[in-house]
C-alpha cells in the first residue's frame, strides 16, 4: 500500500559527515557495483563509452564552495541519496503501490514488479533520490542495501550499506535513528546534525553533520604590501647602495 505507516519500529538511515567527506566518489562506485550485481534490475548505463554517456546511480557526490562572511572559503563534498523520509511524498503519489515504506524499519523501497515507470515518485521527491532506469523502465532508488544489512550469508562487518562499508574516511554512518541511544543518534546530537530542505515537510530520517569551523590564518594587515619596511644590516646596506646607483 502507498499509505505511509503511522509509525515505524525502527528508523534505519544514514548519517553523513560533511566534515570528513573527501569527495572520492568511492561510495558512488560501491553503490553502483552492489546494486547492479545484486537485488533488482541492474543500474544500466547508456552510451557508456560514447560521446554522451549517462546512467542510473542511487548516490551522487556534489561539491560546493561556501564563502563565510569573515573566514576563508571552504570546499564541501556533498553525497546525495535517498533520505528515507518519514513523510515520504514519493510513496503516497504512487498509483500502483510499488513505492512503499516498510513499517518494521522505515526503509523506502520500490517493488519493481509492480512499477509502471510513470516517474511521478521522482517528480515528488525534492532531493532527486530516484532515477528511472532507461533499460528496465522501472524506478530505481537507494534500498539502504536491504540485501546486505539482514544478510546472514555475509560476515557481520559487511552487514551495512555498501556506501558505508567502503567509505575510506568514515564519513558515512549507518544505524537506527529512532533509538535515541544508538551511536548514530548520539553523533547527530553531539555534532548538530541537520535535515535537508526542512521547508518541504518531508521529515528526512538521514541526517547530515556540518563541517567543523576551520582555523583562521594569522591576522595580517591588508595594507602589508604597501607598508614602508625599513631594512637593517647587510640588506639595509644593499638597499641604500642600490638606491644611490
Amino acid at each position, binding site marked *: *500500500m*502507498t*499509505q505511509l505507516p503511522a509509525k515505524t519500529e525502527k528508523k534505519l538511515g544514514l548519517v553523513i559527515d*560533511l566534515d570528513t567527506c573527501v569527495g572520492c566518489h568511492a561510495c558512488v562506485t560501491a553503490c553502483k557495483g552492489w546494486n547492479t550485481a545484486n537485488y533488482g534490475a541492474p543500474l544500466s548505463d547508456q552510451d557508456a563509452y560514447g560521446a*554522451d*554517456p*549517462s546512467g*542510473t*546511480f542511487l548516490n*551522487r*557526490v*556534489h*561539491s*560546493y*564552495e*561556501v*564563502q*563565510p*562572511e569573515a573566514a576563508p*572559503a*571552504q*570546499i*564541501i563534498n*556533498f553525497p*546525495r541519496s535517498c533520505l528515507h523520509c518519514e513523510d515520504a*511524498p514519493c*510513496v*503516497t*503519489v*504512487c*498509483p*500502483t*503501490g*510499488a513505492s512503499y515504506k516498510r513499517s518494521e524499519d522505515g526503509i523506502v523501497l520500490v517493488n519493481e514488479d*509492480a*512499477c*509502471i*515507470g*510513470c*516517474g*511521478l515518485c*521522482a*517528480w*515528488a*521527491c*525534492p*532531493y*532527486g533520490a530516484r*532515477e*528511472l532506469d*532507461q533499460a528496465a*523502465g522501472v524506478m530505481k532508488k537507494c534500498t539502504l542495501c536491504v540485501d546486505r544489512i539482514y544478510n546472514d550469508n555475509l560476515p557481520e562487518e559487511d552487514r551495512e550499506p555498501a556506501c558505508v562499508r567502503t567509505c575510506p574516511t568514515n564519513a558515512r554512518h549507518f544505524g537506527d535513528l529512532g533509538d535515541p541511544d544508538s551511536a548514530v543518534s548520539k553523533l547527530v546530537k553531539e555534532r548538530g546534525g*541537520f*535535515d*535537508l*530542505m526542512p*521547508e*518541504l515537510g518531508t521529515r528526512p530520517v538521514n541526517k*547530515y553533520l556540518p*563541517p567543523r569551523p576551520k582555523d583562521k590564518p594569522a591576522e595580517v594587515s591588508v595594507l602589508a604590501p604597501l607598508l614602508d619596511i625599513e631594512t637593517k644590516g647587510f640588506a639595509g646596506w644593499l638597499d641604500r647602495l642600490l638606491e644611490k646607483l
Partner: protein
Amino acid sequence: MHPAPSVIIFTVLSGLGFGLLFFLCAGVVRPFGLDAFLVWGFAYALAIIGLAASTFHLGQPMRAWRAFTQWRTSWLSREAWASVASLLMSAPLALAAIFGGALPVFFEMVAAAMCLLTIFATSMIYTQIAAVPRWNFWTTPALFIVFALTGGAILSGLTFLSLILCGTLAAVLWVSFKLGDGRFAARGATMGSATGLGGLGAVRQFAPAHTGSNYLLREMIHVVGRKHSQRLRVLSILCAAVLPALVFLVLPLGIGAIAIALCLHVIGAFAARWLFFAEAEHVVGLYYGQR
C-alpha cells in the same frame, strides 16, 4: 520540468474531451440522432486518445492496469478511476441521445459531475507536487478546469457561455503566469537549505556530481526553450481565449465558426500546456545550481 509530448497531448485532449462530455451529460446541449453520434463520438475520441497518449509516458505500459489500485492516496490512481467512471456513465446518455430515450436528470447530473471530477483529478496529479512550487498552487486546478470548460463550450457552440469562459480563461492564464513566477521564491528552498550549508555562508556549486547528463537533468531540470516564454504567454492567451471569443462575436454561429474557434483554442491550449511544464522549476535543480 521536461515538456514531454505524451503528457501535453494527454492533458490537452482529455481535458477537451471531458469538457465536452460535461456539457453533453449535463444536457446543456442536446444533439439527436446522427448529430448526437458525431458529437458524442468526438468527445469520446478526444478523451480516449488523450488517455491513451498518457500511457506512452510509462516505462512499463503493459502494467498500466495497476494504476487503479491506490485510489486511497494517489491522485493518478483517482484520475484513472474517475476517467473510466465518466466514460462508463456517459455511455447510456450517449446511446439515449443517438437512439432516442431519456434518463433521469439526477443521473445526468452525476455523470456531468464525474466528468468535472476527472479534470480536477488530472490537475491534482500536478498540484500535489510540493517540489514543483509553480504547480503546487490553486491556479493549477483552476487552469485545468477552466480550460476544459472553455474547450467544451466552444465545441458545443454555446456562444454566450463561450464568451464568458474565454474571458475567465484569459484572466486565469494571466494570473497563473504572474503568481506562478513568485512561487519558487515563496517556497523558500535555496541552495543553502538544500545542502544545509546556508548557515555557514554563501553556497555555490564548485563541481557538478557528474559531467554527463542523467535522468534528473533531462526530466526535472529542463531549461531549454524558456527564452521564448514571454512570447508564448501572449500567444497562448490570444489563441486560447481572445481569438476564439472574437470568432464567436464576428462570425455567424455554425460549423465553420466552431471549427475556426476550436483550432485557435487548441493551438493556444498546446502553447499554454507546453509552458505549464517548461516553466515549472523543480527544487532538485538547486543541487545542480540550475532551475
